[in-house]
């Protein structure tokens, strides 16, 4: 392999597999020191957010659309089994083939089997989050099949050996000079300028040949329509339309939650999606197709329906709403944590607030347990979510699960945090013990209190708090002491 042209070379290569990625705080630290990356992320999220806010403000019925969108998505989840069967029946009747995959491994195996039947050596891809979720590209490479990403941002990342950091604008952390470097080297265009127009034109020329010659394509899906068995893809560039119409065979990989009851439900979802995702009234291209149409588009069409933990999420009352998501990314653009770190710190294709709740659940709470803590619980994500997912509520529920896991591990007796919480629990459970603890604390903290009444530095675990802020000394008199003796000190309470 050639040397990576990593645009963020001062940062270690991001690990986007939740099973291998370091915890969020560890991954975020080097990124926070990369001012270029933070500047790029801040610029991109500011631009999309401003556009989104303008267009939402102009929409007189935004609240009603949002209510309907949330209700439709929740309704689908409550009836998911029947809608999936209806989709399967209608897609099959239209000439498509429907496959069911319980997990990532099965989905990869199904896709590889189809590609072998097609004798594929190359495959063109439309940006699909689900294929990143199942780690499809490494599997294709191992099978000797070259995957070609055709979304401009994904192409930048693929050629630059980098990873996506946003679900709608995956290369928002890369700036034009960095794109120029990557394209100049990988496309053999040393004279290329860093003008975005020239860079886009270079990608157009580079990919046009691939579109016209590679006979197999892989896509995701924005929506599956139960009523008609149709698939809907929303995009901007036209690379999607190329992949959907030019090849002889098309494979669509879709999470089981992506289904909508009827064609006409798009009148709600399409209105909220484009506004939330890119701040447009409507994205440039939306494609809808049903199975196979003679003379128009692929001759063979496969849909792979992926569970991979989703039916388990469906079972949980609070967490189920996670599956209402339509992947617009609005929660990322507004999140004060994401806006500082970008997507790589999340160690998963799904970043930001939705990633913080979706990733650990897809991993059956066995990995990515630090993500529910990557939030200030400010609820800005809930505010902008077009399908009203109460992300903070799910975050808190998941934090409780993480704590419960930790509580059952033998290692807990060596964890100062656990011991501290245990001690606090013991002290807070009785008034006498609480009073005693307050007194001990006052005496103990005196050692660290400066003359001005501030604590600048605490030892051991406490140092984490004082690392970035000072702490006031405990007051000489507690509220309870004051309350008990207030009548004996006339004049004081009138202050």
């Amino acid at each position, binding site marked *: 392999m050639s040397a990576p042209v990593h645009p963020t070379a001062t940062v270690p290569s991001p690990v986007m597999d939740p099973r291998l990625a370091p915890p969020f705080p560890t991954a975020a630290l080097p990124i926070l020191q990369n001012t270029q990356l933070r500047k790029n992320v801040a610029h991109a999220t500011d631009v999309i957010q401003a556009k989104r806010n303008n267009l939402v403000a102009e929409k007189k019925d935004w609240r009603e659309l949002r*209510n309907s969108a949330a*209700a439709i998505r929740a309704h689908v989840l409550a009836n998911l089994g029947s809608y999936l069967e209806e989709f399967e029946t209608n897609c099959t009747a239209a000439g498509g083939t429907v496959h069911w995959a319980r997990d990532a491994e099965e989905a990869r195996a199904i896709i590889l089997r189809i590609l072998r039947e097609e004798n594929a050596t190359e495959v063109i891809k439309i940006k699909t989050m689900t294929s990143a979720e199942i780690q499809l590209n490494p599997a294709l490479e191992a099978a000797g099949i070259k995957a070609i990403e055709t979304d401009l941002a994904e192409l930048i990342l693929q050629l630059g050996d980098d990873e996506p950091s946003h679900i709608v604008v995956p290369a928002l952390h890369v700036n034009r000079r960095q*794109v120029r470097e990557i394209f100049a080297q990988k496309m053999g265009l040393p004279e290329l300028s860093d003008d975005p127009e020239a860079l886009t034109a270079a990608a157009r020329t580079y990919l046009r040949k691939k579109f016209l010659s590679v006979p197999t394509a892989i896509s995701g899906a924005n929506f599956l329509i139960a009523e008609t068995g149709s698939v809907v893809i929303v995009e901007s560039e*036209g690379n999607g*339309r190329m992949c959907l119409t030019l090849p002889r065979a098309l494979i669509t990989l879709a999470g089981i939650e992506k289904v909508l009851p009827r064609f006409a439900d798009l009148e709600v979802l399409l209105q909220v999606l484009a506004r939330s995702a890119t701040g447009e*009234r409507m994205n440039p291209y939306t494609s*809808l197709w049903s199975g196979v149409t003679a003379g128009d588009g692929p001759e063979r069409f496969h849909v792979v329906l992926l569970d991979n933990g989703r039916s388990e999420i469906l079972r949980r009352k609070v967490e189920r709403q996670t599956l209402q998501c339509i992947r617009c990314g609005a929660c990322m653009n507004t999140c004060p944590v994401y806006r500082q770190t970008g997507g790589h710190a999340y160690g998963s294709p799904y970043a930001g607030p939705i990633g913080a709740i979706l990733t650990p659940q897809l991993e059956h709470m066995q990995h990515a347990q630090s993500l529910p803590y990557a939030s200030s619980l400010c609820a800005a994500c809930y505010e902008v979510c077009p399908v009203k997912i109460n992300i903070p509520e799910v975050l808190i529920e998941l934090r409780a699960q993480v704590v419960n896991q930790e509580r059952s591990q033998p290692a807990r007796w060596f964890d100062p945090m656990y011991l501290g919480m245990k001690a606090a629990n013991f002290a807070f459970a009785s008034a006498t013990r609480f009073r005693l603890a307050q007194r001990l604390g006052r005496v103990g903290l005196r050692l660290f209190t400066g003359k001005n009444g501030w604590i600048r530095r605490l030892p051991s675990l406490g140092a984490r708090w004082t690392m970035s802020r000072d702490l006031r000394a405990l007051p000489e008199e507690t509220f309870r002491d004051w309350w008990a003796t207030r009548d004996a000190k006339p004049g004081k309470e009138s202050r």
Partner: protein
Amino acid sequence: MATSSRQLILDSIRAATHNDSSIYADLPRNYIHRGALDKASRLQLMTERLREYGAEVAESSLADLATTIARQLQSSGRHIFVAPPSLPAEWLASNFVWKVDHALSHDEIEQCDGVVTAAFAGIADSGTIVLHHSPTEGRRVLTLLPDFHLCILRASQIVETLPEYFDRCPQPPRLATYISGPSATADIEMTRIKGVHGPRFLSLILVRDDI
């Protein structure tokens, strides 16, 4: 025989949802269905939205349509055009080379300078052109590979809101493409660039079949 993945997934879903009841007919639908604009304002909005996207818009009466098409093709500076099989013969202006799509190959379509089609509907609120890919609108690939798309839209086909378009579809289409301005990207520093893979130039003739 081992239980299929299909069955296992459906069983798992049913186990999770067996206590749920949610009726489709009860879903709230209080958003705006009908637009409030009169006909003239509706057409004006459509034109404004298209121009915001960088599309070119010309108006024409029904009687002058063929002349208007010829004029727009002339000013595009292009010469070889592809046409869907059932495009009205009088739209195929002379002085240009026409390739009518009777199963043309992708390469043959790619080599054309532009394409001329009809449309199924227009949605003014978002400046969207809807193709259902009938024989006058052409196969999907026709409006994709050439760099220039001239689309003929009748005023009577234009609705104001997206829900009004769905009302005009008694049967859901088998294929549909919704075009809102030329192909675009903002992937590099959020700078909007026209024309990544689809046609870089979109031109519209609004036919005043309403007057």
